[in-house]
């Protein structure tokens, strides 16, 4: 079936199998591999995107369900002026090791700071609880969130 999606402000069309997830369509049909595919079961958060401004796992959204709604992926964060402040903070704080979890964490952090520009330690932990990182031990990631909140 053919579906039409609004991704990062662009109208895109794709031929999909009806059961395909939004994540699969983004990566394999629309050439947007920023959202990562690790678990396909909502456990790791590496596929986090915004659907009508809400943080969701793209692997758990049926692509056809996103029709008529706005999708923002990590590719949509950076502007003409360069990196999104959250992306810059992750790089500066050394919060990126292998980098696999980074796109999901960047989207999650950008979403957190948009609604809560000065989050407490507990609020940061709760907001990031759906994103797993196997490398950093999270300390530098929390540093990056605080750095981004201050910028």
């Amino acid at each position, binding site marked *: *079936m053919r579906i039409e999606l609004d991704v990062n402000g662009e109208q895109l069309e794709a031929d999909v*199998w*009806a*059961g395909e*997830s939004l994540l699969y369509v983004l990566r394999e049909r629309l050439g947007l591999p920023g959202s990562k595919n690790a678990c*396909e*079961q*909502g*456990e790791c*958060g590496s596929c*986090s995107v915004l659907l009508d401004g*809400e*943080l*969701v*796992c793209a*692997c*758990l*959204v*049926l692509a*056809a*369900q996103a*029709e*008529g709604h706005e999708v923002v992926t990590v590719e949509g964060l950076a502007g003409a002026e360069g990196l999104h402040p959250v992306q810059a903070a992750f790089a500066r704080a050394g919060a990126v090791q292998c980098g696999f979890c980074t796109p999901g964490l960047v989207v*999650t952090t950008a979403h957190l700071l948009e609604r809560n520009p000065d989050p407490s330690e507990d609020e940061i932990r*709760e*907001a990031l*609880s*759906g*994103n797993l990182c196997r490398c950093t031990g999270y300390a530098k990631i929390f540093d990056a969130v605080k750095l981004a909140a201050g910028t």
Partner: protein
Amino acid sequence: MEVVSPRTLEEALRLRAAEPGLMPIEGGTDVMVDLNFDRRRPVGLLNLNEVPELRGWSRDDGLLRIGASLTYAQVRQRPLADTLPALAEAARTVGSPQIQNRGTLGGNLGTASPAGDSLPPLLIERADVELASVRGVRTLALERFLLGPKRNALAADELIAGIRVRPSGARQTFMKVGPRNAMVIAVVSLALAVDREREELRAAYGSAGPVPGLVTASTGERETFPELVAAAAEPIDDLRGTAAYRRHALRVLVGRALERCWA
């Protein structure tokens, strides 16, 4: 396989009656896992995200009507969270923010897992499930809707339209035992209410029997209530814990919940 996205409840019910093989999908947090891992291949999917009648909640003379599409994130918001506090506490323990933004009460009822976290808090408030079909609407006590592990009383042509509940106003809480705070299926869970007005204690356990179960006693039975709840549960040994541990944990949780809600 096809996806149909009805725009009204009436249209959704007509599609459901015409093709019972279509699998309803709301937040997809259970359905998509099955699709991604090839565990299920329904003939098609009935996307309920565009049905306005399933959204939101309303209050009419003390009776709450909660749409099946209400997400855990919405359950956590006031003023609903003040009206059904144990349900809001349970919603906060579900998965992660991403899961809470998509997962719905209707989906939790549809899956009918013994570990479904919304079920114990709804049981202690004696909630009813509203089931709709082209034949009409019926309501069923949640206790009677839950039939067994992942089995419910939904007929092939029915959809879960919502939940009806008359909030008791009783002090209540929800507790969940698991290996960490985020992203855990309950090893055992408990919702408990101390209802002074009705002089009743109500407890409902999760992950400690084939279905979440409701246990009641009078407020005079406070001392023996932990034992009563532990004895009523029918836990099994599985990957997440043993039956003996679950019974023990339930006894401890009931004691703590009583302390929290007694004042």
